[in-house]
């Protein structure tokens, strides 16, 4: 079987390296990268803008180009997240936490270099897993019913809520708020419009891009306006800081490995997007990493682990997307749409019926990632220059990019208004020292949590035993319970210690 796979892969490389296919791959990566770097423009907007271009193209170049746009803009988005704290693709939200701190410390170039290494490594592992294990992963994915998906999402929510520094209660509150925002719109089961406040535009849910850019972009500008002159000025960016040193690579390596592992694991599960994956990866890093105490203060692990996770996840994610027709996140859904426009029906038959497409795509991932590295090694210096732009010019321009980026996602001015609302909301909660990242996590997972919770209880006639009777679901719920207990105990211990110290001090 492996022999057959290798043979197919060889054919795939043949397809991907055909000059005109290679050319379109390159065009896709380049355009994706350039658009992704623009603040406010992520993979979602890049693909939606360029999608019409592919209508007239042949199937294989079209898909290769879209895939190129996808990982090009994904990497471009990481640049915006790290250098400007603007996560255009929500999976970069956690990268912002440490990445932007690194930038503020003058190590933005290092963070970019680590990101590049991490993503290339993770993508390669993801591709290998995809090749070797696709049949197996598809089989596991079939075993996942609503109860299992609900349990794993609950775990993701808990991880995300308790990952942030500071008060865990505040993290929980923000996760809950995100779940609530996820409820806005038309209820899938009954068609009831919830929390739409009479706006027709809201019946189709809050726009993800608007939420992310509001919470991270606009809120950040609201907090920083008139606070400092230049992002890079806080520490000088020197030329030799741009490439990560050997010791930094060594420091990041275990995090990359762990992130890749998490990403690969989650990749096979349909319905779990890269956002939850990055949250879990960073949460894991802040629990078992060597520098776990320093996560969130600006260390390379905080960039390496989530980026590795999202890239390996993204690669492996193509398995459920292509072979089951279940997209993991909105970007995958768009790619799925592109396939259908081209007349290809995703599903178990795809691998057999369009072998050239499937294996060509896999091979082009590798080719595309190599192009991405070749393109970005010389460009890191250019990106870092972004930071030298005085803040007084940077933020108004970025606000324009945000406005037009959000507009172009669905051609809706209403969603630009959403950005403003979420920006103000994010700034208010940041003022009260709440972490805002869990809002995004809650929003992304909310609808899926609700749907799977409702579906599993519908299946069991309201009997909660369904969660005990499914071993996979039960074990995930067990981990949830364990996490809560650990949290409670450690809080209790720290309170007890503090109490003892205060008594000692007063004695």
């Amino acid at each position: 079987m492996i022999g057959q796979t290798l043979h197919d892969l060889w054919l795939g490389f043949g397809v991907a390296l055909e000059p005109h296919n290679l050319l379109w791959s390159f065009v896709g990566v380049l355009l994706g990268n350039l658009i992704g770097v623009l603040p406010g423009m992520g993979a979602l907007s890049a693909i939606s803008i360029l999608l019409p271009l592919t209508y007239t193209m042949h199937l294989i170049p079209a898909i290769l180009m879209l895939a190129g746009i996808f990982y090009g803009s994904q990497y471009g988005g990481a640049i915006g997240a790290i250098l400007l704290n603007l996560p255009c693709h929500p999976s970069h939200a956690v990268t912002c936490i440490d990445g932007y701190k690194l930038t503020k410390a003058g190590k933005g170039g290092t963070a970019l270099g680590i990101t590049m290494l991490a993503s290339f490594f993770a993508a390669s592992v993801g591709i290998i897993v995809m090749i070797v294990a696709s049949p197996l992963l598809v089989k596991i994915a079939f075993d996942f019913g609503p109860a299992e998906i609900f349990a794993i999402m609950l775990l993701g929510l808990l991880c995300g809520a308790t990952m942030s520094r500071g008060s865990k209660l505040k993290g929980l509150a923000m996760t809950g708020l995100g779940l609530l925002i996820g409820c806005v719109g038309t209820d899938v089961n009954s068609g009831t419009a919830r929390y739409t406040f009479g706006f027709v535009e809201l019946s189709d849910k809050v726009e993800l891009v608007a939420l992310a850019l509001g919470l991270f972009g606009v809120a950040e500008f609201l907090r920083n306006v008139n606070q400092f002159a230049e992002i890079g000025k806080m520490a000088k960016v020197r030329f030799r800081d741009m490439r990560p040193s050997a010791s930094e690579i060594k420091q990041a390596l275990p995090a990359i490995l762990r992130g890749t592992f998490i990403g690969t694991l989650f990749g096979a599960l349909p319905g779990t997007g890269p956002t939850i994956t990055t949250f879990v990866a960073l949460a894991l890093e802040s629990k078992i990493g060597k520098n776990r105490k320093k996560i969130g203060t600006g260390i390379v692990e905080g960039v390496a682990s989530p980026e590795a996770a999202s890239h390996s996840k993204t690669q492996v994610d193509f398995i459920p997307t292509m072979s089951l027709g279940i997209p993991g996140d909105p970007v995958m859904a768009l790619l799925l749409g592109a396939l259908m426009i081209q007349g290809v029906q995703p599903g178990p038959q795809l691998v057999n019926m369009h072998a050239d497409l499937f294996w060509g795509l896999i091979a082009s991932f590798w080719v595309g990632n190599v192009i991405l590295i070749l393109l970005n090694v010389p460009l890191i210096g250019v990106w870092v220059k972004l930071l030298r732009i005085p803040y007084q010019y940077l933020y108004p321009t970025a606000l324009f990019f945000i406005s037009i980026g959000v507009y172009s996602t669905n051609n809706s001015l209403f969603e630009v208004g959403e950005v403003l609302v979420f920006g103000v909301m994010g700034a208010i909660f940041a003022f009260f020292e709440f972490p805002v990242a869990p809002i995004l996590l809650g929003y992304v997972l909310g609808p899926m949590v609700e749907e799977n919770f409702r579906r599993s209880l519908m299946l069991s006639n309201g009997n909660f035993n369904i969660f005990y009777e499914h071993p996979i679901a039960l074990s995930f719920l067990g981990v949830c319970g364990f996490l809560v207990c650990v949290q409670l105990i450690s809080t209790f211990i720290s309170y007890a210690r503090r109490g003892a110290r205060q008594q000692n001090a007063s004695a």
Partner: protein
Amino acid sequence: MSLPTTLRRVVKRDIGGGLLVLVIGTAAAVTAENYTIGSVQNMGAGFFPFSIGVFLAIVGFLIAIVGLIKNETQPASVASEWRGWACIAIGIASFVVLGQYGGLVPATFSVVFISALGDRRNTVISAAALAAVAVVIAGVIFWWALKIPFPLFHWGVA
């Protein structure tokens, strides 16, 4: 019995934030009662939002309580900056309004111009110059090259 100012502000923050979450949760739960809540066997549209609302209310209450009993000292992190805040908010709002009644060019100009005025180092001239550059970018990259459906000038309901 008076607390130092910074201390008092931190205490207020936890209480304020907790109460805010409490209010949001309560409002959400009350609103959710208008949708069908249903039962565990047959959940209605309101079941999940109602539970979240109750959960938020409880967590908000707990945060406020912790804020009351905790006495940590931490100085306030952000100074008030009404000019910057107002300019950014009005700038984005103007993009929405002028995007509808004006087109891409006026909308772009006003979002950059107004929000740039929020920074004290910007003058009317430098803000206008920056806005003009943004208009060129909007025209060349977004309207001409990427062809987003947003007319440069137009009036009324699109």
